[in-house]
């Protein structure tokens, strides 16, 4: 049997808008992935620590507060420091289009804005998972 893709869904920072993160967590689970939902108020250190412990293939970040340029990038920086660039990082939330190129450059492979069908996220992960 093919190994299930393991995904950590996390909300970095203080933002409490968790509707999207929960919906995505469920959609990924329904698509056959193993989902670890870290929940709210995660620091980059906490997220990366959980990613190591749970040996995940993917980290899915969600943020609606507008702090994505700092908080998403904190996570990819830390992954780089730990030589964990084989973990696929995706992010979603209220993200202006102008910010997307910089996020991609910083290692957020997929950025999903409002109105994204959950299937698009599932497909993207399946296609791009590195491990």
């Amino acid at each position, binding site marked *: 049997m093919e190994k299930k893709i393991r995904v950590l869904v996390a909300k970095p920072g203080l933002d409490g808008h968790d*509707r999207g993160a929960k919906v995505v967590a469920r959609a990924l689970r329904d698509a056959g992935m193993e989902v670890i939902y870290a929940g709210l108020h995660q620091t980059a250190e906490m997220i990366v620590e959980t990613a190591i412990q749970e040996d995940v293939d993917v980290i899915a970040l969600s943020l609606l507060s507008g*702090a994505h340029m700092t908080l998403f990038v*904190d996570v990819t920086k830390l992954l780089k420091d730990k030589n964990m660039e084989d973990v696929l990082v995706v992010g979603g939330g209220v993200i202006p289009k102008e910010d997307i190129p910089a996020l991609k450059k910083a290692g957020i492979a997929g950025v999903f*804005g409002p109105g994204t069908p959950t299937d698009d996220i599932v497909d993207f992960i399946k296609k791009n998972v590195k491990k």
Partner: protein
Amino acid sequence: MYNKKELNRIKEKKIDWEKNHYSKLVKIHPERKDKFENLSGTEIKNIYTPEDIEHLEYNKDIGFPGEYPFLRGVHSTMHRGRLWTMRQFAGFGSAEETNERYKYLLEHGETGLSVAFDYPTLYGYDTDNLLARGEFGKCGVAISSLKDMEILFDGIPVDDVTTSMTINGPAAIVWAMYVANAENRGISKKIIGGTIQNDILKEYIAQKSFIFPPEPSMRLIVDTFEYGFKQVPRWNTISISGYHIREAGSTAVQELAFTLGDGIEYVKAAMKRGLDIDKFAPRLSFFFNAHNDFFEEIAKYRAARRIWAKELKKLGAKKTRSLLMRFHTQTAGCTLTAQQPEINIVRVTLQALAAVLGGTQSLHTNSMDEALALPSEKAVRIALRTQQIIAEESGVTDTIDPLGGSYYIEWLTDKMEEETYRYFDKVEKFGGVIPAIEKGFFQREIAESAYRYQKEIDENKRIVVGVNDYKTDEELSIPILRMDEKGEQRQINRLKKLRRERNQSKFDRNLKRLKKAAEGDENLMPYILDCVHGYATLGETCDVLREVFGEYKEPAIY
């Protein structure tokens, strides 16, 4: 409401119509769907007639505005007497930038202020706290001390304009800053008016900006109730909110039931303290969402008024004012699309109209660009103009509760009330709201509804214009609000200066006294006011309480 004979004639006629007209046509031209359902999953019939509301007694169940059970409105003149307060939720960056936005809004005809705070402020952290990283001013204004509050309201007549503040965990402290600022400007706290959200139960349920565990949080809230009716009598010391429950994905019925359930919980907590219900209940206010299903939203507000009046009466309230479900409305942020953002103006118009027809006391209309970022000046002006058009041009304000008596609206109002009581029973079985939160009941209910809604969109069972149908390839071209990058450093410098210049021994003494009071059971408001007056920061004051009360960690459920 109808005599038996007349009702029988209507029933006979309806059977005839169904058989000889309706069914025949449906056979040739089937309807668009097999089943019509509203957003709460309630099946909607093809037509409503007097038969659907035959059980209602006009004077008892519907009545007149300003009279029990207040179904048709809380005042006897409603919008004929006074329009709702046009109150745009606003805040970003530093106190200076937001102060400018408030003046802009007031200049353009806004009639009340509403403060959006950034995340560090909502969690009781100062801007220079490590946990505040990246969040300064992002989705609201950063207020770390009385100094910031002074700047935020500089040049704004706080004795005249009312201010609503969306603050929960640290509500008592931020309110104290507002009161202290007014006092320092020589304005008596007896005359200032406004609202603090201060609704912690829905934070655990949906919005998630909590600090302390339930028990001390409820204590702080009751402290504000008591201090409010004694010292700041024109202040609404709570805004019991369904808005965030709905935004988190609940249905309209869940929003209605969970919000009123929370309200009853607060009343019980205050009565347990020994407070007189007729003293604090008149200062309880509400906050609802205005989502897409036009009639369902109107029925929701009407049902809320009747249920609240009934429940408060049961709890022993005697004064008319205690029974009034007065509410603010905000159009549903979660319905805004990033695709074709201009069409959000139309969504907002319909939602705002529902709120007005539902008898709102205060209204925020979202700006078209809010699925992308905080609103630009132009976008927010259009949103405000939308309210002004409804108020001045549409004529819907000329009579009270114009949809009252509609067979459909009255039926739906009743139905939503019935379902609300079903939820009350469920929560009762958990042993009340707090045990139900701890067991994840509300969180699961909401997550379930949110997922169902998304699935329906993904599967094209529910159409969202511009998202899963009627799409265009047009490039997005609306200007996005960008903030002053230097604001954060300015704020940090201000904090440093404040800590350096304040009277340190007085500061130490104030915090020590607050800690001691928190360990006992006195009302904390006077102690908090002393701290704030002495320029203790929000973070420093909250830290004292965190030390005594501990912090809440939520069960992660999806």
